[in-house]
């Protein structure tokens, strides 16, 4: 069903390069000191976006309540990002600029993101590096003492800053250090092991959250003048993904149910280089950083029947299919293209010896050219991880990889101010939809997280607080009481089912359906089947879920069940969004819409818009609204990496 709400992105007027500066100048401020302390801001999540926003709002003098489900904010899933963070510093003198980073990101996203947001992201990228260095983040350096760079997929310049294969960890520890400083200063109050269960909306404005303390099960109310959600993406809807096992969509989904529109749910990123799947006991897939494609060469045997070990396959009988199909970018094509190309080869029966869903990533040439020590210095920790999982030594036997769900470009709809369709609700980082279009380039998630956290959220939340004339609402307001009751009843309902199927069992089935029908390639029949299967899984969940323990104790099975019931709704919306989008773009590939060479075929005349879905009630069909995408600064072209 299509609706007709007008979605105003509130993009500032004027030339692209001046929009953010002008916006900063035009927006009201809150004077330092006592005025700022009067405002309370809730920030949910402590990753780069959430932790960065909480710390920075604290530095500015606001009263911040910061929540995370982990036992400490330092464990947010940003910690797991391996490869790097992009910034348009042009330290390598290779022709980089804000304009080029902007263009690469728009093109990488297959022309499905908003120009103004992406330009701001590129502008802010340089300040992130400066700030992180000042905080003591130990980025890789050259012998002369300057910062070092590497190259990532989808670009022809070297702009990725890194800290070995642990860039996310180091940037997150930078955020965490800023956060603990504010906690000690008393501006940020930290609530670890607290999970947001619902959003409280009063008079059309987001005024607080209901959260559960995970140790005791106590359900609590928190009131504020604005709420920032920075709770990450929804890849675990596929069950097996590279995400941490506790990553979930509950905060954004419950906000969606309270009126926040959900955009582009079908845009999911399947990362090309993860350790292949092994068995149905698995709890997650392990990523092998994109940086490996700097030096590794991807190949499969030319002959589908060839199941020899890789060292017995002569050079002439190998197909380096990325180098063959995309000579200009070779192994460094964007993620969506590399992932789909692996699937195409495997579907033809060409695969690595390990399983029909695996291809080789070979370092033999790199070791010959650079020496084992240099390769070890660059990728040693990844090689060790791989060896522990698969048992092969990648210095000697080519690594085997296969695509895996990794990142979700879709998320809650936000305007230029990162404000959702509920006033006072801000959404940052992976949880929003705004910057990556239909495909995110490597090393851009950390960039967006910190741009939002350090620079955008503190500024736009301040403008909101200065201009909104928000009335006083306390946590004893009736709205809080009623949402708290709903949250408690929901958990008790889950415990009362007393069926036979475990959370994992149902989640596994959901994941398989999503992977097979709403994964790397999709088609109409498969999507209709997915919608029907997910409906049945929801039935099964609500009639046959097995849980033990109580809601007034630490109960991780209950936590997972509570998250799964949201995935069972979100999965269906992803299928509906995929079905609606009769084109192929970025990570969304419809079998019906491809070129004779098998490349994605966009339909700019009919689909150059952001979908924004409205929740209409349990079991009811959602309504889709559209935000047209207007391109004034780039020409819409067919993406080519050939």
């Amino acid at each position: 069903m299509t609706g007709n709400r007008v979605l105003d992105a509130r993009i500032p007027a004027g030339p692209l390069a001046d929009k953010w500066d002008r916006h900063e100048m035009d927006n009201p401020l809150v004077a330092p000191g006592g005025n700022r302390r009067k405002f309370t801001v809730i920030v949910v999540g402590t990753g780069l976006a959430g932790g960065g926003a909480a710390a920075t709002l604290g530095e500015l003098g606001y009263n911040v309540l910061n929540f995370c489900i982990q036992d400490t904010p330092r464990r947010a899933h940003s910690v797991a990002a391996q490869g790097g963070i992009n910034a348009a510093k042009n330290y390598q003198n290779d022709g980089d600029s804000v304009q080029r980073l902007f263009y690469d990101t728009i093109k990488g996203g297959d022309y499905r993101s908003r120009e103004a947001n992406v330009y701001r992201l590129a502008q802010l990228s340089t300040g992130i590096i400066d700030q992180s260095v000042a905080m003591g983040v130990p980025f890789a350096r050259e012998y002369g003492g300057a910062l070092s760079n590497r190259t990532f997929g989808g670009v022809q310049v070297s702009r990725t800053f890194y800290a070995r294969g642990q860039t996310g960890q180091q940037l997150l520890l930078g955020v965490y250090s800023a956060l603990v400083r504010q906690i000690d200063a008393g501006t940020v109050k930290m609530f670890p092991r607290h999970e947001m269960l619902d959003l409280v909306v009063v008079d059309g404005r987001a005024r607080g959250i209901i959260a559960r303390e995970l140790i005791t099960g106590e359900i609590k109310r928190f009131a504020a003048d604005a709420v920032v959600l920075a709770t990450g993406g929804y890849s675990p809807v596929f069950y097996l993904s590279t995400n941490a096992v506790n990553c979930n969509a509950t905060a954004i989904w419950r906000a969606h149910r309270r009126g926040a529109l959900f955009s582009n749910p079908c845009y999911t990123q399947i990362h090309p280089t993860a350790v292949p799947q092994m068995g149905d006991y698995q709890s997650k897939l392990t990523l092998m950083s994109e940086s490996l494609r700097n030096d590794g060469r991807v190949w499969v045997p030319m002959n589908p029947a060839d199941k020899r070990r890789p060292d017995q396959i002569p050079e002439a009988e190998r197909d380096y299919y990325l180098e063959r199909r995309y000579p200009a970018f070779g192994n460094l094509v964007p993620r969506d293209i590399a992932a789909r190309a692996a699937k195409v080869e495997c579907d033809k029966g060409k695969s690595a010896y390990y399983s029909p869903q695996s291809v080789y990533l070979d370092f033999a040439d790199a070791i010959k050219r650079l020496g084992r020590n240099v390769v070890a210095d660059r990728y040693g920790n990844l090689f060790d991880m791989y060896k522990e999982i698969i048992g092969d030594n990648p210095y000697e036997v080519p690594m085997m990889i296969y695509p895996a769900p990794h990142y979700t470009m879709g998320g809650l709809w936000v305007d230029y101010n990162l404000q959702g369709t509920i006033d006072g609700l801000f959404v940052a980082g992976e949880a929003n939809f705004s910057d990556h279009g239909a495909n995110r380039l490597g090393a851009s998630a950390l960039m967006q997280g910190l741009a939002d956290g350090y620079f955008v959220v503190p500024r736009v939340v301040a403008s909101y607080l200065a201009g909104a004339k928000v009335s006083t609402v306390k946590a004893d307001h009736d709205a809080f009481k009623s949402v708290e009751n709903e949250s408690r009843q929901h958990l008790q309902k889950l415990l009362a089912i007393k069926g036979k199927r475990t959370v994992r069992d149902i989640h596994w089935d959901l994941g398989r359906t999503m992977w097979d029908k709403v994964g790397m390639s999709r088609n109409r029949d498969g999507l209709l089947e997915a919608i029907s299967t997910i409906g049945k899984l929801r039935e099964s969940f609500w009639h046959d879920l097995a849980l033990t323990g109580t809601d007034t104790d630490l109960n991780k099975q209950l936590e997972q069940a509570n998250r799964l019931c949201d995935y069972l709704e979100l999965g269906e919306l992803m299928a509906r969004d995929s079905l609606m989008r009769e084109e192929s773009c970025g990570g969304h590939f419809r079998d019906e819409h491809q070129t004779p060479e098998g490349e994605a075929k966009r339909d700019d005349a009919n689909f150059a818009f952001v979908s924004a879905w409205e929740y209409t009630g349990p079991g009811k069909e959602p309504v889709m609204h559209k935000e047209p995408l207007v391109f004034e600064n780039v020409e819409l072209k067919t993406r080519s990496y050939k």
Partner: protein
Amino acid sequence: MSDSSANKNNSPSKGMTIHLKIWRQARGAAQGKFVDYTVKDIQKEMSFLEMLDILNEDLVRKGEEAIEFDSDCREGICGTCGLVVSGVAHGRHAGTTTCEIRMRHYEDGDTITVEPFRAGPFPIIKDLVVDREAFDRIQRKGGFVSTNVGSAPDGNAILVPKEAADNAMDAATCIGCGACVAACPNASASLFVSAKISQFAWLPQGDPERSRRALAMIGQMDEEGFGDCSNHGECEAVCPKQISIQNIAKMRREFIRAALRG
């Protein structure tokens, strides 16, 4: 062929039987006890925690409460997991977290004991879950550079010798899991605290607050009830990120330097 069929093709038919002695302790209880479990069909490629997942599913199906343990990223970087496996924090395999242990290190019929990280400053919450907030309280006292967003000079304005950056990075890889404390006979947090002090001591950005940081963090470590370091070296042996005990020597030098300067 659907992608998920790969799973079936790869699953060997028969796995190992493993006997487990797992620490169970109700929330708020003063004491807990070991409870015996047996799990079947364990594959060599499985991770240790996936084995516990399977056990938990069996328990829930039987109507029993699942065993609570912390884990998140399951790839050794978040620092959430941490179990004492047959007497060794994160198991006997060097340089890995609990979540990275694979069952290929075990044989059919093995018995494995599973306990929480035990230390006075890490109270047990429930079963295998402990409270490590003491680490956060230490960090709050000085584990940062006092710089507000917006005030940074250009990233290349201050050059840092590669060796110093590499040394800082070696220390900074600490994941804050607490294995060092669990392994230390004195329950000392010295490896954890020294890694942070050392990271900043190697970098020019950390220099202005060097003395203040060392005194404040060490002071808080003592206040939390962590023991002294008496050079057993157990911490380094179990550290999943192989943080060197040399950091503790550096921390001592930092402390003396700060104390002498007053």
